[in-house]
């Protein structure tokens, strides 16, 4: 794999130009330059790295790509306009080609901040400075370092103490050109506050290859609650890398959902640190890979405090020479007694050319815990298919009923009806259900 250092888009002058054009404060410029150094000093992961041995790294190559942001164009296609309208999100930020282009939010709750990161830096610098780079932090990986050096666009959400934001907020990240882009989401939910946020990634077919590197930082203070959805349905020219890390404080609760449907290849890393007693983290995942897509997902349930609960449920299907990789780990630190942690991965293989890899791991260093994990992989059960066909369903209809049924276990735990509806439609379109693709 070619080294990236010969790519002028990821070198000190590019970062300096980025800082200058955005008029960013010195402390942030310093963070970006330090991250670039880390990026340069970090070798590319390879198949010999345990965490990357099933990742098709060449599909995440960034050599030769020009740096997004820009150009600034506000108009989005009718299809994406409809997506935004049909979403559960009531407050919407649109980031296109790495630049915030539109914001619509009717926030009644006092003190809530929902804006792009550049604006937030001007208007709420202290809040941003206090939290940025704290959840997704050292040690940085090759890709998080790249993001930390180059992110543009981006979203900042702050919900003050005791405030509950009723309406879901969301950012639509889209593009109409290829290149190398990075986006960042920073969500801070203060003590006993509550919010819902949807990060959606979508595009119409692009004229060139896009590599999008995203980072989501979530900080949940004591008693805070957040529902976070990341919904990836890029067009097929896109390689998507996304690191999501949440710090979950005492008695705080995170409900996260990660959906992988689009793009050519996606690598998502979803991590919760249960950092306070009584913290809870539910991490749901759903993926459906077709036409040679490669989806690679990695979850971490890190219990650093006692009496916390975490649960992972990732389900997915593969067909048409696709690969899906799920690996996940429950880490229980010494002293994190009374930990309650579960992890489940289930895969459906829909044809012989496809491959599913599952690595559910445990590393437990406290003894008074309840931890379990399970993984199953198999075909659509023949007896169920036979049953449906005996009721008059055609084989392909029986299959899509069974696949949607299989994925329903995850979707039924998602309390955002329009997200669930959309995901179901995309899955149906992938399964070839007639008349669905046109409606997407």
């Amino acid at each position: 794999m070619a080294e990236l250092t010969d790519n002028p888009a990821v070198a000190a002058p590019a970062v300096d130009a980025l800082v200058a054009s955005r008029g960013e404060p010195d402390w942030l410029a310093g963070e970006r330059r330090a991250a670039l150094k880390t990026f340069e000093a970090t070798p590319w992961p390879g198949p010999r790295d345990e965490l990357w041995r099933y990742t098709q790294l060449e599909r995440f190559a960034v050599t030769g790509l020009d740096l997004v942001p820009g150009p600034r164009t506000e108009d989005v296609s009718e299809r994406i306009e409809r997506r935004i309208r049909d979403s559960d999100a009531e407050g919407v930020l649109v980031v296109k080609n790495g630049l915030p282009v539109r914001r619509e939010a009717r926030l009644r709750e006092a003190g809530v901040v929902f804006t792009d990161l550049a604006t937030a830096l001007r208007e709420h610098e202290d809040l941003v400075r206090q939290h940025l780079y704290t959840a997704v932090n050292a040690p940085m990986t090759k890709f998080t370092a790249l993001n930390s050096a180059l992110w543009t666009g981006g979203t900042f959400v702050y919900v003050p103490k005791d405030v509950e934001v009723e309406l879901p907020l969301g950012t639509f990240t889209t593009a109409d050109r290829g290149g190398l882009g990075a986006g960042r989401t920073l969500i801070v939910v203060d003590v006993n506050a509550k919010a819902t946020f949807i990060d959606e990634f979508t595009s119409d077919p692009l004229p060139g290859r896009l590599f999008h590197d995203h980072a989501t930082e979530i900080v949940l203070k004591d008693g805070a609650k957040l529902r976070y959805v990341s919904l990836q349905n890029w067009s097929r020219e896109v390689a998507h890398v996304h690191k999501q890390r949440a710090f979950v404080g005492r008695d705080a609760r995170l409900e996260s959902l990660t959906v992988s449907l689009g793009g050519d290849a996606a690598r998502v890393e979803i991590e919760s640190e249960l950092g306070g007693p009584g913290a809870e983290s539910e991490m749901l995942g759903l993926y459906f890979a077709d036409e040679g897509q490669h989806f690679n997902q990695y979850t971490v349930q890190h219990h650093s405090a006692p009496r916390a609960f975490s649960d992972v449920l990732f389900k997915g299907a593969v067909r048409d020479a696709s690969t899906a990789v799920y690996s996940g780990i429950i880490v229980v630190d010494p002293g994190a007694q009374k930990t309650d942690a579960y992890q489940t991965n289930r895969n459906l293989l829909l044809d012989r050319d496809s491959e599913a890899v599952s690595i559910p791991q445990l590393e437990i260093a406290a003894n008074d815990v309840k931890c379990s994990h399970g993984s199953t992989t198999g075909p659509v059960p023949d007896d169920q298919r036979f049953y449906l066909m005996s009721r008059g369903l055609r084989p392909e209809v029986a299959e899509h009923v069974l696949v949607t049924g299989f994925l329903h276990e995850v979707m039924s735990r998602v309390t955002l009806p329009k997200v669930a509806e959309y995901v179901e439609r995309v899955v149906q379109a992938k399964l070839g259900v007639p008349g669905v693709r046109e409606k997407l």
Partner: protein
Amino acid sequence: MSELNSVHPDAAKLEGMQHTKQYDFRLPEDYYYKSGKGLTKEVVEKISYMKGEPEWMLKFRLRALEIAEKKGRPKWGPDLSGLNFDDIYFYVRPNEKQGTVDSWDEIPEEVRKTYQRLGVPEAEQRALAGVGAQYESEMVYHKLKEEWERLGVIFLDTDTGLKEYPELFKEYFATVIPPEDNYFAAVNSAVWSGGSFVYVPEGVEVAVPLQAYFLLNAQNIGQFERTLIIGAPGSKFHYIEGCTAPAYTSHSFHSGVIEIVCQEGSQVRYSTIQNWSHNVYNLVTQRALVHKDASMGWLDGNLGSKTTMKYPSCYLIEDGAHGEVLSIAFATDGQHQDAGSKMIHAAPHTTSSVVSKSISKGTGRASYRGLVQIHEGAEYARSNVECDALLLDEQARTDTYPYIEINEKSAHVGHEATVSKLDEEQIFYLQTRGLKEDEAMALIVRGFLDPVAKELPLEYAVELNRLIELEMEGSVG
């Protein structure tokens, strides 16, 4: 099986002993030949020369040495930094006489006494079809009962196997585990000595187990036995291996290679409960090639050693092949038991099952590392893996790393793992029935391991229980 002491008449006297006493049988070192320390070409050549081996074997050894040097140690898994090859004797020959004897009377008295203390000759008379005993690098005793010999069963030490059955030996040797496979297999291939050579002819069923027994005595020694087991079509037998070493303060190294061929319709079982002293690095490669409708069962118990890396595997290469691993690991203070299994499904209708139980006590760490691989075209393969870990102390650790790679639509693969602590209510209940706390704990641990223990022949199950009691002693307070 070090712990034949539990069936020994003196077993009762072990009550209340410190667990290091298990290894308190060290003999004065008095050897015919002891190589220099370190893994060198000279040592490899000397081993081959002293054994009077054919040219091809010397070439094989030297090639393996090159492979080992090129490969280097694995970069994953347990910490092996305490293992210093420059401080290890790779070959120690206990006596001048080449080859084994088949009467205990001909074994030097000191060595014989040790085996007696471990109860091996008694077990041989009572429960085994044949026994091999390895002392340091060489097999010193070998005997197969006549009734089995008459049926054409071959049970020899590997060096003698090479001499007496050169064609058969060459046909299978290093075909299941080539030196390229992994670093420790390469090291073993370069310096192997001793081990068992077993051939059970077509349709022969050996009703009682064959056993080999491995003993390390010298300080800083490496033992590299090489075992080759061939089950001809339709044969059925059970091979048991045991091992022990006295407790020295410096580290010893055991790295066996066990290759098993299960031909069509054969049923082969291999059981081992290793209880090396807590200064031994135990890094073993064991694998079976399983042909059409054949079945391979590994029973793997890991109680002793400082660090174990051991992943018994089955390559299910023909239609209907079946593989099984039943394993237990017991990690106590300072130990890391990194054990697991590999099931490679490379043919249709192959099935596999893995049950792994581990216990971590004190600062012990038990890891399950496994692989289930379903190749494309291995239609209707089924595999199920269950791992249960029990944590007895606050500092104890456990890990599970199951790799599941599936390339075939019709495969059904499942994995389940649970981690829990000793149930306080159960302990309390047993105490109300009059048991002391440590007795109650030992009883619960035995119950936890029961699904594995009941697969062992009776003598060994008794012994396993005995060992657990020894490991559990002093666990309270």
